[in-house]
């Protein structure tokens, strides 16, 4: 990669933005909140509460600014990456230190939670990390970089015990067992309904590609289902299932009840249909007609044509549909708790009901993490099933925007 010294801008505006966001978060918003117990509103405390660690944070922020105006693109990239990791680590330690300090002479039920300023600073660090990763222009780094950054930092802080006194960690410690079972429940209902959706959606997409009438009906119906608000669909399923379960006892024994995992499972499976059906349909119909013609002309039977030509070529799009569905379902699964399923939604809505921010975070953050992991994992899977011959080659790195602008 050429050094973009020809670039008209001698500084990295993206890194500068990251640094500025961090600065604003540190200077204006409360770094931590101190609450007398887990339910009452707290009082904000600035970064100064972290004692000497505050200076470390300020130091790293200064480094972030320097990284934005470094002499060469390469140097700027390295500096902003280092700045990003440094910031996350410093913030984590400062949080721990602030909690330590503020709780020193408080009652044991008092809590210190992560303040808006710290969240904003983490966003700034992510932008900074992105600015650094961008120069390397590797897709995976760009996409997964910030996530890896966060996971590493949080894991590091947890392992070292620095965050033990932050209220989120304490909430977690109290509910550890429930938390684990809810994550498993969340994964189970999402995975099961995704599997069901795929088992129905892929053949349906296949039929839609073969038959115009099926296509019209399948795409219209799944499209309407998709627009119905999840909560409404859940409600619409609960009522007949309740009636059915009441009327047919053996069905109720099988789990068909108004309240329980059944309506959630069915709703999620229904939601997965649109992306799966549509992508299967598009994938199959976008297979080059010449390839199909050649296959037929060479004497392939319909089965052979399907399994040797059409499905391999459609696989990446089918997987993409499953990815979209997986991300979607991971989120909607939180709502199935209203119909009696046991997912991370329990923590979220219990937290909302009790006005307990930590509990909400304990449910919402892992949900987001699961969705992001599903996204990255399924993308990798989609890449794996893409036949090598049709993979987009990444031979030469795309020019960065600075280079393009200079050209």
């Amino acid at each position, binding site marked *: 990669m050429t050094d973009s010294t020809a670039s008209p801008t001698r500084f990295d505006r993206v890194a500068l933005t990251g640094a500025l966001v961090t600065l604003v978060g540190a200077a204006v918003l409360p770094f931590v909140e101190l609450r007398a117990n887990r339910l009452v509103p707290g009082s904000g405390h600035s970064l100064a509460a972290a004692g000497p660690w505050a200076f470390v944070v300020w130091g790293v922020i200064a480094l972030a600014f320097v990284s934005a105006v470094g002499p060469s693109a390469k140097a700027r990239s390295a500096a902003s990456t280092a700045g990003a990791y440094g910031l996350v680590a410093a913030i984590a330690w400062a949080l721990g230190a602030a909690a330590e300090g503020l709780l020193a002479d408080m009652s044991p039920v008092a809590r210190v939670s992560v303040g808006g300023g710290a969240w904003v600073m983490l966003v700034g660090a992510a932008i900074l990390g992105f600015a650094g990763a961008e120069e390397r222009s590797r897709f995976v780094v760009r996409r997964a970089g910030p996530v890896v950054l966060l996971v590493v930092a949080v894991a590091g802080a947890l392992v070292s015990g620095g965050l033990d006194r932050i209220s989120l960690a304490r909430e977690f410690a109290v509910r550890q067992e429930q938390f684990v079972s809810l994550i498993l429940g969340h994964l189970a209902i999402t995975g099961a309904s995704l599997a069901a959706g795929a088992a129905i959606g892929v053949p349906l997409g296949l039929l839609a590609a073969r038959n115009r009438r099926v296509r019209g009906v399948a795409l219209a119906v799944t499209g309407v289902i998709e627009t*119905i*608000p999840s909560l409404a669909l859940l409600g*619409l399923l609960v009522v007949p299932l309740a009636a059915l379960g009441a009327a047919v006892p053996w069905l109720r024994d099988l789990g068909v009840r108004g309240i329980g995992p059944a309506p959630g499972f069915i709703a999620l499976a229904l939601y997965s249909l649109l992306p799966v059906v549509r992508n299967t349909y598009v994938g199959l119909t976008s297979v080059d007609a010449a390839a199909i013609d050649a296959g037929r002309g060479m004497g392939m039977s319909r089965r052979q044509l399907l399994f040797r030509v059409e499905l391999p070529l459609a696989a990446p799009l089918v997987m993409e549909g499953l990815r979209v569905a997986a991300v979607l379902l991971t989120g909607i699964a939180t709502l199935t708790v209203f119909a009696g399923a046991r997912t991370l939604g329990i923590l979220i809505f219990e937290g909302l009901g009790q006005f307990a921010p930590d509990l909400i975070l304990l449910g*919402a953050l892992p*949900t987001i993490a699961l*969705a*992001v992991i599903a996204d990255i994992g399924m993308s990798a899977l989609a890449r794996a099933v893409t036949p090598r011959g049709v993979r987009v080659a990444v031979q030469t790195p795309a020019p960065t925007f600075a280079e393009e602008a200079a050209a």
Partner: protein
Amino acid sequence: MKHPTRIRWAVIAVALVGFALLVSAEGMWRDLLGALFPDYRTVVHPRGTLVDFTLEHLALVGVSSALTIAVGVPLGIWVTRRSGREFRPLVSAGVDLGQTFPPVAVLALAMPVLGFGFWPTIVALFLYGLFPVVSGTIAGIESVPPAVTEAAVGMGMSRWQVLARVELPLAARVIMAGVRTSVAINIGTATVGAAIGTGGLGVPIIGGLAVQNMAYVLQGAIPAALLAVLADALLAQAEEGLGVATG
């Protein structure tokens, strides 16, 4: 091509009027739900009328979507201009990442950060709605063939004229598709707002599920589903109309 379009607009108008009549026909709901669930003591949610819930819902969605469009479209345009191009990868990556976040989780996170009530919910809906609008705007503008903008520049149009007369008209349909996605998500997420005390059609659903009153559930779920489908049809029609206008 004019005729079927007009007919579809007429159908949508009739459906809208029908929907308005349906949610205001309180007596009908009472009778119908009463007949369906004879064992229940009450069949309509006590907190308000269906009209109240619908208006609350529309207020949440309307305000947040208006803000989303007002901010999202200019942001999308900016990162495709020379002055904002450096931020285009950041914004795209942020928007991609943001779209993988579950809307409910984002809404829930708004509470510890912003507090309870109407405005915090609006902010959450607005922020989340930005993702599809921004990505639609970027995709729309970038779908304009470079040859076309080059020709426009070659004909002596200023940057503003190229944007206003060439890029935006050609991108309108894709931008509208982003808006449509955004509104659909907002309508869905706003039902969950009931759990944060912002009202809306989610109130009878959540309330009904909590106390196992299936009549309440239906009272909220049916209008919510209809509202979503109607709004989507309306926006789909607008999207198609923009497509026709630009060829």
